[in-house]
């Protein structure tokens, strides 16, 4: 794998790796992809199976239910003047 492609993947996944991790992951990456290429030896015919069993797509009733412990959620967030604080855009 070219450095350019590896850097593109790091950028879109918001990951940073150390110099040591970079060497190791790049080398593993090539071995794993070579291993995945084994599927080219299998003749594949038919529809993809997104789930192993049939999923009927049943939906629950669209009804508001009170959440049991909303106080603990508020405790977690960093707030300022009643607003939740987040990183800069």
């Amino acid at each position, binding site marked *: 794998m070219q450095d350019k492609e*590896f850097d593109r*993947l*790091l950028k*879109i*996944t*918001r*990951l*940073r*790796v150390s110099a040591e*991790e970079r060497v*190791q*992951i790049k080398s*593993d*990456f090539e*071995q*794993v*992809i070579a*291993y*995945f*290429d*084994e*599927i*080219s*030896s*299998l003749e*594949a*015919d*038919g*529809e*993809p*199976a*997104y*789930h*192993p*069993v*049939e*999923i*009927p*797509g*049943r*939906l*629950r*009733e669209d009804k508001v239910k009170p*959440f*049991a*412990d*909303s106080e*603990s*959620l508020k405790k*977690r967030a*960093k707030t300022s003047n009643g607003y939740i*604080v*987040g*990183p*800069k*855009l």
Partner: protein
Amino acid sequence: MTSYIEEFNGIEKQKDYYDNLFAQLERANEEHHAFNLINKDAKGGFLLSTKANICVRGFETDAGSKMLKGYVPSFNATAVERIISDKRFAFAGVTGMDEFGFGTFGTNTEVPARNAFDREYAAGGSSSGAAVAAALMKYQVSIAESTGGSIAAPASLNGVVGFTPTYGTVSRYGLIDYANSLDKIGVMARSSDDARIVFDMIRGIDDYDTTCAVEKITLERRKKIFVINGMLEKADSGIRAAFEKLLNKLGSRYEIVHVDSSIMEKAIAPYYIIAMAEASTNLAKYTGYKYGLMSEDFYKQYNEFFTDARESFGIEAKRRILLGTFIRSESVKDKYYTKALVIRRMLIKEMDRMLKEGYILSPTLPIKAPKIADVKKLSPVESYSMDLFTIPPNLGGFPHVSFPYDYVDGMPLGAQLVTGHGNDYAILDFVKEWEEGFEYVYRKNLGEL
């Protein structure tokens, strides 16, 4: 063998029973690291533990990752909710695991669990702590989770019963996702009866998980056992020899049929393609802000903030995020991901055909328990290859159970039995029959009455 849950609840306990048990458990845990957290307030019931990726209200649930350190759910997973309200059970704590379930041996985390038979050996993964907990205590049951073999593999290495139900029988609500189309919550215990009791309590349709769709469970016994030649040949000679002895024992009651299946033999690659593709999307939500790890460096720019926080992922998690993202790239998606999904349908068709006639039996793992030091020397591909036997039923969502069948050099060996979708009771029934003629052995029996 009978149910330890029933046995325990029928006997009066000494007043200081739980104090003594937790004192013993804390000492054992220093040696084996089964539990991330022990709840010493658990009194008055049969102990129940949960894997660290299943949410329990008020208890840290970190999925074995630094990224989720400090995450304390404010709700119970459906499986937990259904069992915790039963006064026969008491919540004993949270068990350790490979980070986000990424591992076969339990070593991909900060403090790996150690085998219950010998702490120098791997506990197996990713439900490592859950298996060790069941092997340490007779009166304890572990709720665990499997994506590609995370219940069967550690159950085998620690000599306990590891039951993975049909995909979609137990709600995944409250499970920290690894790969949504593969994840299944199951049970680890010292007897098939206990696994069945707990399975019946946690299974069933749930409004909070639309994929929880399998309600009817059957017990259709089979008289044939299929053994896949090409897969067995890849196991170590010691494993093959022990497994042949098992087949000889079973041969008087079952017709043993040796068959070939190139699609089952080659299931590892499609499995890892699907698992990594799904994992890479699931792990996108961990940004050091919403769950667990909480960065307060809000002065940073958006990308810098998230990239800094995501440095907390371990190397295996980073590897899988990168591989999964690559596989989903527009230019190669059809070559890998879509093709893997087509192969999954073909595998289900082929296994289904066999499972209508008989069970599929194999060793659970192709090797004996490895030492932790040796696991660390394995390359990722070598490590993924260890899932040879556990992947086909997991990829196809078929119920399977690993049960102890021999002890070699003082360490347990497990065999894996697979049946068709929804026929879960049949394999538990098979193991119950096995238990009538085979006594499981353990090194420790904490809390024995």
